[in-house]
């Protein structure tokens, strides 16, 4: 693979301090708090008490919290649905509390999630953000409180369900879902973040390798902070990612985890009701999203044996339609780089962060962490194949 030409704005590829400040804050907090575990899953009563303190601090009057119900899914956040009534809203609203356990498969910031999600609500269907507590100052744990959105992440009838929506099949809804999916990606990437005055985000320099190096430093920091057992291929991938970091011409908003299972739609119309899981969003290279969504693990095979990106579209159709919708041109070299980066990120999450959180017993569902962790070698295999191809 030819090296990208050096650019004036480039950073030292080995300078590990090159990282978005808020990400650094989150990673340091993770290491600092790790030893305060183990974490116990919250009971309904505990959740009720936490929310009461929170809403009192927020100045709500005559409020009541009812019908607390633990939601399933997500190896990452503890989620509870509940109904809130208060003086200004006698009828009450169904809400979702999305809260950090002590340590999860990905350590992210509820402030970033809350901020970007409330802004993106003006551009596409997302769950409305009611409150967030970025550092858990009021609630005790970082959390975001969202409006409850109806819909499903996979068809209620037919198809097979897997952990976190992987390996699902979307059946006859494909024709309705695919255009909305392409549109969600395009709208995200076209979003003009420079005018949004984002508090919790920083942007890498345009025309520089900084976007790529910020990502490498983020995930390699996670790896070395979490290391349970050394894996030579992970170290090799880090070196490759540094030495091959491409320039990002124009940093864009990247969702970071847009794939099958992370959008909700209503039945039978198939209309999107929410694009979910903005926790990994950052400003970077749009190729990262494209490479992410095209991963085999998130795809499915049609009845004719053709691979469908996110279970929706054949690869070539996906690329054509995305380029038309976004106005971006996909560069195969950068796409390949971000395929390696994504495989590396997945390996780091599965074999590093998930294993460490499960070992420290710092999560609310370690059985999911170790289940996902046992798929880590799938990504090691991809790394080898991709680097060889490069």
């Amino acid at each position: 693979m030819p090296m990208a030409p050096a650019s004036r704005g480039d950073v030292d590829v080995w300078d590990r301090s090159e990282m978005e400040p808020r990400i650094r804050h989150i990673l340091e907090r993770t290491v600092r708090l790790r030893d305060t575990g183990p974490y116990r899953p919250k009971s309904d009563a505990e959740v009720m008490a936490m929310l009461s303190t929170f809403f009192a601090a927020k100045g709500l009057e005559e409020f009541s919290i009812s019908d607390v119900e633990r939601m399933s899914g997500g190896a990452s956040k503890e989620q509870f649905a509940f109904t809130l009534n208060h003086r200004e809203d006698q009828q009450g609203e169904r809400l979702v509390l999305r809260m950090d356990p002590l340590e999860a498969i990905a350590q992210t910031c509820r402030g970033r999630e809350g901020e970007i999600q409330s802004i993106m609500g003006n551009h596409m269907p997302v769950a409305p953000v009611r409150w967030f507590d970025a550092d858990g100052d009021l609630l005790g744990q970082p959390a975001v409180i969202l409006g409850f959105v109806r819909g499903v992440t996979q068809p209620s009838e037919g198809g097979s369900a897997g952990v976190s929506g992987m390996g699902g099949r979307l059946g006859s809804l494909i024709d309705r879902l695919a255009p909305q999916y392409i549109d969600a990606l395009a709208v995200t990437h076209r979003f003009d973040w420079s005018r949004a005055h984002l508090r919790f985000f920083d942007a890498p320099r345009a025309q520089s390798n900084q976007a790529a190096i910020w990502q490498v430093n983020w995930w390699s920091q996670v790896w070395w902070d979490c290391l349970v057992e050394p894996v030579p291929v992970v170290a090799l991938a880090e070196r490759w990612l540094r030495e091959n970091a491409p320039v990002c011409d124009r940093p864009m908003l990247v969702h970071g985890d847009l794939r099958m299972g992370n959008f909700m739609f209503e039945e039978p119309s198939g209309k999107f009701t929410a694009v979910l899981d903005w926790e990994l969003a950052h400003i970077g290279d749009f190729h990262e999203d494209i490479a992410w969504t095209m991963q085999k693990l998130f795809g499915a095979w049609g009845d004719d044996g053709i691979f469908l990106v996110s279970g929706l579209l054949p690869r070539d159709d996906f690329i054509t339609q995305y380029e038309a919708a976004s106005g971006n041109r996909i560069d195969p070299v950068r796409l390949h780089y971000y395929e390696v980066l994504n495989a590396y990120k997945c390996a780091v999450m599965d074999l590093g962060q998930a294993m460490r959180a499960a070992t420290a017993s710092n999560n609310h569902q370690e059985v999911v962490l170790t289940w996902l962790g046992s798929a880590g070698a799938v990504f090691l295999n991809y790394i080898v194949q991709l680097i060889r191809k490069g």
Partner: protein
Amino acid sequence: MLPDIDLRIANMIKALEQVILPALPRDQRLARDQAMLVAGHLRMIGEQWKSALRYEQVALDDLQGLARDLLPGAPAFLADDLAAALAMAEACDRASVTAIEQANIAIGHAVDAVILGGSDHAPMPSAAVDRLLDYALRHARRERSWFKANRLDPDQNDLPDLVTMLAETN
């Protein structure tokens, strides 16, 4: 390997105790009892599984010793089977839990036949009975220690832990 077996067992116990049990309705007593027993079984398996091969090796060695002790006094028509079972056990793949279990069963049947003494129930030499009772005591001790974590044993406090027990037999 990542995740290793110990970690997965520990995770399952936590899931049972902190998520599954609290979610089971109070009146579902059978389910609650079984969920608690699942956690108990997992805790015990977690302590045992790494030593299982060693344990089966020790058990087979001891049974082979008994077979050798019984061989001289065994009626001729049973001695051949016993000798054959012994030879099979001696040749088995000691790195395989399955192979050792099979050898254990084969030799156990041959030993049983000698103890019952065929259709005329010839008496056992008293020295052989002594050896048998010595063996049986070691066997019972070993199994009691191995399963100590079930907490059913009235004398569980007198038993060594697994590591000590297996070290003693080295």
